[in-house]
């Protein structure tokens, strides 16, 4: 069984929710990102202490008709992509959350 994965919002960003879309601007290079509904749900739920599997089960599987295993695999891939841009932080240990990047 894989170790649980934890995700937290990046600290060096500015973010705002527009309906189902979340717009995020990187504080490092000013690059602008747009998260779709699925990625927005993941980002909003990224509190650093809830395991990703639990987020997927509660947020994604509840909202979309998708099996938990497939959703978790896709979510892990997405989380690592977002982490590559500094939008999320990913760890196998709980992370300190920050409200710095939380979209109002």
């Amino acid at each position: 069984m894989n170790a649980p994965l934890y995700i937290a919002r990046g600290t060096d960003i500015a973010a705002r929710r527009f309906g189902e879309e979340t717009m995020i601007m990187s504080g490092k290079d000013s690059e602008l990102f747009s998260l779709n509904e699925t990625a927005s749900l993941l980002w909003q739920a990224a509190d650093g202490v809830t395991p990703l599997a639990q987020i997927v089960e509660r947020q994604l599987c509840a909202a979309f008709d998708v099996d938990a295993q497939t959703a978790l695999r896709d979510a892990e891939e997405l989380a690592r992509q977002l982490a590559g841009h500094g939008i999320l932080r990913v760890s196998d240990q709980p992370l300190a959350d920050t409200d710095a990047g939380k979209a109002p």
Partner: protein
Amino acid sequence: MNEPALPLHADIGIGGIHVRLRTDDPGFIDLLGERYAGFLDGAGRVDYEFDMHLQPPEGTDPDDDVRVFRRDGLWCMERGDFRAEWDPQSRRGWIRQEPNPYSVDSVLRIVHSLLLAREGGMLMHASSAVRDGRAFVFMGVSGAGKTTISRLAPAGVHLLTDEMSYLRREADGYFAYGTPFSGELGRPGANLRAPLACIYLLAQGPENRIEALGHADAVRGLLANILFFAQDRELVQAIFASAIELAERVPVRRLTFVPDSRVWDLIGNEST
């Protein structure tokens, strides 16, 4: 020992902010006079001051891209053709460059963009114009039609710029100011100020049409066109918040147009 003060200066007022450039070269003063005609200020008000050292910048490569960063409380600005530092506390700085108008033009754009970012304003890749006392901004990437729509402006329309629009957030709303920063038109804008009525995101197409933009698309359009250099977290947050607020308070529309003067029949006439 302090260096002797540079004896000559030109005061350049853009957007109500007055920058004094000091030099000891009378030829460069003449060059600044030509470049910033209409924006030279003789009233003596000085908000910021720069000593200009007209020599090749040390430690840069001619091909270097622009870098703007904060170091020990100073703003540092570098490109292949200039280096500059500026202390926002003392409001003084220096610029090292060859005696050409292009480098100082870039430094001024950077300084103004930093100043405006702190107060909710911005420089924007956009042309702008005043019609019947109201300002209209036309933003878009290179080739979108900023200069074209400026050329098509009818009599009675005052062009603020065909290249770089200057927006300030003031107590009673947003205002657009004229700038000397010109594009293909090759002439400075009118040194005027007017309340901002509408921002158009330009696109060229088969007919003249104005469409509403959703809030997210409006913010995206603004952010894509705001002039912004600094790699600085606080300023990124400020610019992001400024774009959101601007899109909330001023109508942002998509303007598709064919390049003839009839497009101006639509400007300022659509209901907001």
